């Protein structure tokens, strides 16, 4: 058991923190920061941040140098993510590229693919989005109906994807499509790399319940792509996709934990400003107990995160136990939203800029409702734990 960071790692943390403080635009990450209304402008700002990260040497921290990465370990990666979390720095626009596609290509991609796609991804030149879910294939991903057929040495894709984050900003999309109708559902799927400027692609934004427009529907109408844009082999896409989802469920929880800690501190501040019978809510034992319990869980999330990193470092991969982390943080965050609204009391309905806390607690309440759904619902994570970790019969 050794949970400390060594001297070199602590130096790295210092370096990262200084760089972040010097490079984050003023007010960014505070509830007071005003994003432009225009989506294109918003995309430009985020992409600029990705480019800055690359120039600063903070893109692909744990990826090999030969593909534009920094050749460091998951420890430095996590240190940077923690520091970025502490400053509430947005994740950039290429989250899905860095979090999902990159690790997937490193594991399943050909050498050509790695050389072709990883450096521009890290540079912020090519932004990625994820084309997995479909209207009738959410939890049941194997039910996808989007098809790809080989026509004259080109794959021709037809179908519809949903919940495609950042599709309206993306240059590329990694897409699951059915390539064999005869095989069982899990066996006839292939993982494709599709340029978003291909003819036949239409993107329609999906507004979320918190008013954000990060998600999209993407329609593929006879979209034709080169034969070689396949990762992990034809009809082997299910295995590749499961690897991708594993990354989604298991990693980056430490950065997330710091963000939750940040939200918690804001919650404390708000609880101090609200009074009940002349006393700050923060001094009322009911709210103190609720907040303390929440704080304990945020810390435990950190412990889980450290364990995950340790596992990655020492064993090189994550098991189905990673579902625990997704289940833990998403349900904890829903609870956090609930407690936030309890603290706000009669101030709860007001979410404008002039409201208490500028609506940041309500945003937790709304946003967290999506978190227990995307990247595998709470129900799916529990199935995975019961069946694959505890070995209960299917």
């Amino acid at each position, binding site marked *: 058991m050794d949970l400390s960071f060594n001297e070199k790692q602590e130096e790295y943390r210092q370096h990262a923190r200084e760089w972040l403080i010097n490079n984050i635009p003023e007010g960014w990450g505070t509830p007071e920061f005003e994003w432009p209304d225009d989506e294109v402008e918003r995309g430009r700002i985020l992409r600029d941040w990705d480019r800055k990260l690359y120039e600063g040497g903070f893109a692909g921290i744990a990826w090999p140098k030969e593909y534009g990465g920094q050749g460091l370990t998951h420890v430095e990666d996590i240190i940077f993510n923690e520091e970025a979390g502490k400053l509430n720095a947005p994740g950039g626009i290429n989250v899905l590229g860095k979090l999902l596609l990159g690790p997937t290509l490193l594991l399943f991609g050909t050498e050509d693919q790695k050389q072709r796609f990883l450096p521009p991804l890290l540079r912020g030149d090519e932004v990625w989005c994820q084309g997995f*879910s479909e209207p*009738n*294939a*959410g*939890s*049941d991903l194997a*039910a996808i109906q989007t098809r790809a057929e080989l026509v004259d040495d080109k794959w021709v894709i037809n179908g519809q994807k*949903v*919940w495609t984050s950042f599709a309206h900003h993306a240059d590329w999309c990694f897409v699951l499509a059915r390539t064999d109708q005869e095989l069982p559902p899990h066996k006839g799927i292939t993982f494709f790399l599709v340029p978003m400027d291909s003819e036949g692609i239409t993107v329609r934004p*999906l*507004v*979320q*319940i918190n*008013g954000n427009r990060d*998600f999209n529907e993407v329609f593929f109408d006879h979209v034709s792509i080169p034969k070689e844009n396949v990762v992990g082999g034809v009809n082997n896409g299910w295995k590749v996709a499961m690897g991708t989802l594993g990354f989604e469920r298991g990693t980056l929880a430490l950065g997330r934990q710091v963000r939750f800690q940040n939200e918690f501190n804001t919650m404390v501040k708000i609880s101090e400003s609200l009074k*009940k019978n002349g006393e700050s809510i923060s001094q009322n034992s*009911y709210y103190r107990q609720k907040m303390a319990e929440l704080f304990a869980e945020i810390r435990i999330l950190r412990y889980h995160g450290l364990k995950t990193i340790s596992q990655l470092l020492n064993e090189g991969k994550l098991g189905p136990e990673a579902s625990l982390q997704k289940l833990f943080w998403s349900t904890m965050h*829903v609870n956090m939203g609930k407690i936030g*609204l*309890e603290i*706000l*009391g*009669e*101030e*709860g*309905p*007001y*979410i*404008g*800029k*002039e*409201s208490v806390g500028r609506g940041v607690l*309500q945003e937790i*309440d*709304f946003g967290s*409702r*999506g978190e*227990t*759904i*995307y990247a595998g*619902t*709470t*129900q799916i994570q*529990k199935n995975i734990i019961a069946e694959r970790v505890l070995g209960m019969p299917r």
Partner: protein
Amino acid sequence: MFFGFNDEEKMLRRSVRDMFKNKNTPEHVRAFMKEQTIPPGLHKLLADQGLLGIIDLNGSQDRKGMVNAILVAQEAGRFLLTYPLLESMVGLAALKTCSKQAEVASEIESGEKVLTVAWTSVDAKARRSENGYVIDGTLREVPFAKDADVILANVRILGMGQTPNEEETLVLIDPKNPNLVIRDANSMDLTYPLYEVSLLNYPLNESAVVNRMGMGAGHQLMEQMLKIGALLLSAEIVGCAERTLYDTVEYTKQRKQFGKLIGSFQALKHMAADMYLKVESGKSAIEYAAWAVDTDNEDADLAISIAKSYTSSNGVQVCGDAIQMHGGIGYTWENDMHLFFKRARRSAAVLGDSYYHRENIAKVAIDGIEGKREVGSKKPIVVEV
């Protein structure tokens, strides 16, 4: 002993439900969310059905109309009614206690004027000036103020009592008066907008006073309005929760994943069963409270706090579970689940949140219980319930 609704009450519910179904459709709600203007004709419709003046605080035969009122409020929640019906019902009940205000009451009841209530007064005070009284200060939590013709508000008239409470006086505010500013308060619930009204040198005519100035009358009446309002809000929350439960159950009977209707998964069945338990418990709570108010039962205040605290916690949770059970589609703006969730959230927060009403309960259940067993006593003790 009859814990249920009679034919008349059931008929009322059916006719209100049919009306909202046709006249307050999801399309109407979505249009309202953009315009934030009460659709033309809606007041008239509600007035014609006799819904606005349904509560009578001096009701004869031990009936104040609360059982009817919760039935109507439940339907308002179920259909996300975009009208201050709750404020009309409660406000009219208050206005009718004052014979001076019979004319404006009848204009409201007949649908000529829209009434709303300022639920919170932030230090709104009337002071004497050259030509009578003028009011300065801010009114908060005023639903639909932008569309209202009359705002019923509680302000302090300085000098009209020994204590701030005694000075409180119910007055009618004219939202079209130039000496006030109405500001959208940016509430999460776009189906039921809240406004803030700031008054500066607003001239208070004596004819705008309900009952009389000060001497505790306004305070007392407002207390009563807040209680009845809290009960009606509980009914709205129950309506939201019930609607989302049954819509969700319906969805699980249509949607397939893994080759099966998702409603056949036990995890979703048990979530739905928990939701049902919360909805039915909320219904029992509001129905009992309405009966208690109607019959002047000594239990009435306690029953209201039970209803409001229970529905505020549990009704919101039902709406949240409904989002979860819908999966990704439930998290989209296009789907209606979030509208119910936010409406329930808003209703849970105002007129006393769960904490407030549980503290009310504690005062009775903990500080004031009768027949508490003395530890060590062997005497039989009768527990009053």
